[in-house]
């Protein structure tokens, strides 16, 4: 049984009152969700608490889930909205990415004539550590798509569905996130 059909069956069983089915959903998605939420909020305890809240919200909204959509996409949409609410409360700008894209701080998506080789100077393990540190310093909406792409391993189409944005916009955000991380590495080197 494919993962997608398995999820749909688990959702159906949960709606019919099978608690064990929802336990299986939690077991399957707790780590991907924690890694997404954890990387976006940055604090482990807060991330664990938020992950729990997302599962509770998911359970209470299961009746509104439409089986034609992928369950994981729907779950992450709930999580993403939860995070946006958190950013709003923390007064972190989650909405003016278009403005941020025009910001001079963001690197251009063209290869400069004299580009220094920064990344290739590091060993992979050291580079991972530096990427983690740089990830905390990039704008939250860019961090979100970076985590989805590289940690949750979502396709651009899945991310576009979660955010309700065109695939091209999502690709652009992911590339901006990578380039900004590279820029941060360049500053540190």
């Amino acid at each position, binding site marked *: 049984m494919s993962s997608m059909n398995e999820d749909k069956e688990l959702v159906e069983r949960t709606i019919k009152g099978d*608690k064990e089915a*929802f*336990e299986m959903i*939690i*077991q399957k998605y*707790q*780590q991907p969700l*924690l*890694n997404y939420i*954890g*990387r976006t909020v940055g604090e*482990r305890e807060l*991330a*664990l608490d938020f*992950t*729990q809240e997302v*599962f*509770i919200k998911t*359970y209470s909204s299961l009746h509104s889930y439409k089986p034609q959509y992928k369950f994981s996409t729907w779950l992450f949409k709930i999580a993403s909205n939860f995070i946006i609410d958190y950013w709003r409360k923390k007064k972190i700008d989650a909405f003016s990415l278009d403005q941020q894209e025009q910001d001079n701080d963001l690197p*251009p*998506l*063209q*290869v400069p*004539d004299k*580009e220094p*080789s*920064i*990344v*290739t100077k*590091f060993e*992979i393990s050291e*580079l*991972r550590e530096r*990427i*983690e540190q740089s990830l905390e310093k990039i704008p939250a909406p860019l961090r979100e798509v*970076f985590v989805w792409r*590289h*940690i949750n391993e979502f396709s*651009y189409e899945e991310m576009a569905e979660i955010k309700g944005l065109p695939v091209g916009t999502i*690709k*652009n955000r*992911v*590339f901006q996130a*990578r*380039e900004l*991380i*590279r820029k941060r590495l360049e500053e540190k080197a």
Partner: protein
Amino acid sequence: MKCLSIEQIYLCIEKELPLSENKKIEEHLATCRKCKNALEERRHLLQASENLPLWQTPPDFTQQVMARIFPIRVPLSAWLTAASAGFGSITLAIFILFLVTGQNFSSLLTSLNHSLWNFVRNFSPVFVKLFKVASLFVKTLQQFFEYIIKAFASLTTIISPQVQIIIITIAIILIAFSIYGIKRKIFIGEQA
């Protein structure tokens, strides 16, 4: 072909470009050092990004979430059943006492009241002292009581209302007979 954009470089690394475009890019990369370096730089970055360490959830995470979604609840009907059973049992106990002693209801209630009052009067000083001692242990025993309450709540959800009625009836009859027995003992003691 002119030099690659960052977007083309990433799409090339991720094999997201159409085959025809991919071929052109490969040909360009074979001749352009700048684009080749830029591609290698980003390939290395993506390689490291794809293996970032994963955050682990605690082993009891699922249970924690399930406990928040499905807290142990004692249904109201169970408490109503228990209260009805208690009231019914007291009535039954009084009726049995009436049959055993042959007294009328009012004198039976009066004697029960007297017994209860004597019991309270004799034992209240002891109870006060015991209460004072017990209060010292309240804080340390708090956790224990929580477990007891949870266990009782679980029990009432497991045991059927009929069995609950039987258990409570038996308990009340036993208490009633104990009070009667104490009264008789006191009465015999007074006679002796």
